[in-house]
């Protein structure tokens, strides 16, 4: 086990370094550079050239990358090409909101999706199954911005129960005002719960048919226990994989939610950086998100190996 973990972690390091190169290449494929974008509306071409020189963007890409990588090794994420502030500051200031949001969502998502998935799986083909399927799918196919706007219209504008944005709130206000989380988390949940619960449903259907479930039932294992202890471990395999993916979706892909609720999170920071071609910030944020995503994936793989241990001896 330990060897396995060590191997995966060292692999992840290799992957991250490759990713750094890849992201660097991708960003350099984008049209324009930080200088051009910064002077979009206001300056002429010579100003752009000047700024380009000042930011060091006129140097060959390989050199720039080497510089950045060297800095990274010594723990320096570099400075932003836009604000001139250290990238680590940008990262630090955007991570709190995202982590809070993602973890609250995850804490609610997992039990909810498991519950829905199990209920659907146990009643597969029945009316309850079809109802839940239809509702979650419909919610999933309503775009999140429409859903968010509708929720805001009802719960903050009409009823006035909940705040509609995080405007003016700071990361440290959150514990004091948990209501801020309600609407964003609801939107994120509807985004993610459908896929996850459907995976668990599929797994449940398969596991319910398995001989071992039949035997456990024959041995008088009561229904709840049967579902939780005998069906769920097998049913969870696709779910865990989906969850790993949801994890990185929560961290990286909540742009719409962040924009609508004015949440200063990593997605906003990343998109900002991409749009202003702030390569060091893009690099740092992608690497961070990638590291988290990889960690999730490794965890998911390990979990699946525990849940379906047969695959271990396979190779």
């Amino acid at each position, binding site marked *: 086990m330990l060897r396995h973990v060590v191997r995966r972690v060292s692999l992840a390091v290799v992957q991250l370094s490759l990713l750094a190169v890849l992201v660097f290449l991708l960003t350099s494929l*984008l*049209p*324009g550079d930080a200088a*051009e*974008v*910064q*002077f*979009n*509306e*206001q*300056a*002429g*071409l010579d*100003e*752009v050239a*000047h*700024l380009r020189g*000042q930011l060091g963007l006129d140097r060959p890409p390989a050199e720039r990358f080497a510089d950045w990588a060297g800095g990274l090794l010594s723990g320096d994420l570099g400075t*932003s090409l*836009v*604000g001139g*502030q250290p990238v680590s500051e*940008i990262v630090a*200031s955007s991570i709190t909101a995202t982590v809070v949001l993602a973890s609250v969502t995850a804490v609610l998502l997992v039990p909810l999706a498991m519950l829905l998935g199990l209920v659907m799986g146990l009643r597969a083909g029945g009316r309850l199954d079809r109802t839940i399927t239809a509702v979650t799918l419909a919610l999933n196919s309503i775009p999140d*911005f429409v859903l*968010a*706007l509708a929720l*805001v219209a009802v719960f*903050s*504008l009409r009823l*006035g129960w909940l*705040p*509609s*944005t995080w*405007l*003016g709130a*700071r990361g440290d206000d959150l514990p004091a005002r948990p209501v801020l989380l309600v609407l964003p988390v609801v939107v994120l949940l509807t985004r993610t719960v459908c896929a996850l619960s459907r995976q668990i449903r599929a797994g449940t259907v398969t596991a319910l048919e398995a001989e071992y479930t039949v035997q456990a039932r024959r041995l008088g294992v009561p229904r709840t226990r049967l579902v939780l202890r005998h069906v769920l471990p097998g049913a969870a395999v696709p779910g865990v994989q989906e969850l790993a993916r949801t994890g990185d979706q929560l961290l990286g892909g909540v742009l719409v939610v962040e*924009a*609508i*609720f*004015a949440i*200063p999170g990593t997605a*906003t*920071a990343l998109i*900002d*950086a991409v*749009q*202003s*071609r*702030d390569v060091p*910030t893009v690099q740092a944020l992608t690497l961070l998100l990638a590291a988290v995503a990889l960690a999730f994936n490794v965890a998911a793989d390990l979990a699946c190996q525990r849940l379906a241990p047969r695959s271990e001896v396979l190779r």
Partner: protein
Amino acid sequence: SSGGTDSGTPRKGGMARAVFPGAGAKETMDPHAQRQFVDIARHKAVFDKLVDLGGTLRPVPRLAQRWETRDDATVWRFHLRAATFHDGHVLDADDVLYSLARILDPKGIDRRARASLSGIDLKRSRAVGKQVVEIVLKRPNAELPTLLAMTGTAIVRRGYDDPSKPVGTGPFRFGSFAAGRSFAARRFDDHWDGAAHLDEIRILSAETEARANAVQAGEVEYAHEMTPTFARVVEANRNVRIVAAPRSGAEGIVMKTDRPPFDDPDAAMAIKLLADRERLVEVINGGRGVVGNDMYGKGYTYYPGNVPQRERDVAEARALLRKTGVLNKEVTFYTSSAADGFVDAAHLFARQAGEAGLRVKIVTGPPESYYTDQLKTGLLGSHRCGAMPIPTYISDRLLTDSQQNATAWRRADFDKEFAQAQSVSDERRRTARYGVLQQRIRDRGGLLIWGHPDWLNAVSARLRGVEAAPPNTVDWARFDKVWLA
């Protein structure tokens, strides 16, 4: 509901929150490097300029009580008023000279006003006593007060260098700033224009949807730059009103006049005759605006208001297209989502052009670098410009060496005439000469200005005293004169 000034007696105290479109890490507290509206609003709270622009884009005194030029608009004297910086230091001529030097610093490439103020001869400019600054120009320019009112010209305290510790003479004392998020400032009681009513102002950044939601939910009192659709949404809302500033810039289509077919003024004229301006204003601006007459700055100082409105004339346009050989040809329209309505306007225009037999191929480019890209690509392009004095518009966009010469209008004689016009001290004569230049662009240039939209801000019913002023003018985003009911 919409409206301008409120009546009623101002009340002191309270905290108001205003939200603007954000620009992430690009936002800055350096008043000379400002580029976004949210920056300008923040800087306006902390700093003052020598001169600012009034409702018709005419210079109005601020820190400079008055000014005069002796001869041919080369040597200027600005008389400062008694103003105090937040740290107690009293404004003097050296602060002004320091600020100018900082703006003109060749190493500070992000200084917004460097190019426009490059006519100032710093070495020969000097302090004449504590309260008078003498600014000497390299070439005569009657527009110096206007130039000093442009963005990026705030007066900073002598020695100011660290953007994170701004000290100004403005109505609010700097509190905190997080780029892309928030800014807070408290009232400065010793402001020369009288203390602000509010105790505290917060200026926040957020995307369109968040601004709309926040102002409707009462989480902010002021939301900047709202869409016509939003204005319709809150029409019946008693808690929110729209403050619409008329004639806040121009929207149009630019044609490249340095290459076929638009190097031929007739071809350009055909395009101008094709556009259905009323429809464009109705759809793109939601009817909140007035049609344009192919000249920038309707309603501003120097605008030749007596020129007849250009009307749509499809038959004539068709004839001109045929004459110039453009009929049934395809021209590319380079646009992007860099500004609201660009893409829609392009498509709308393409349909209108199609009615006369001109095929317009729309190419959508990346928004981040659109304005730069547009200088190189496309025969037609989307154009939009906020409120600025007409001479500034011309020098920024219509001279051979203009950086944003989107119509590729490069005519040496035009440049020369403009320079001459600028140096005319007499205002009436100057106005006449600008008028001639404007009409020349209108008839032979590549500029199709189809509309002058209103600038829409949403204001909570609690907030009073908000003026309907176009951006970049003195009463726009001015939070020292507003109060909470």
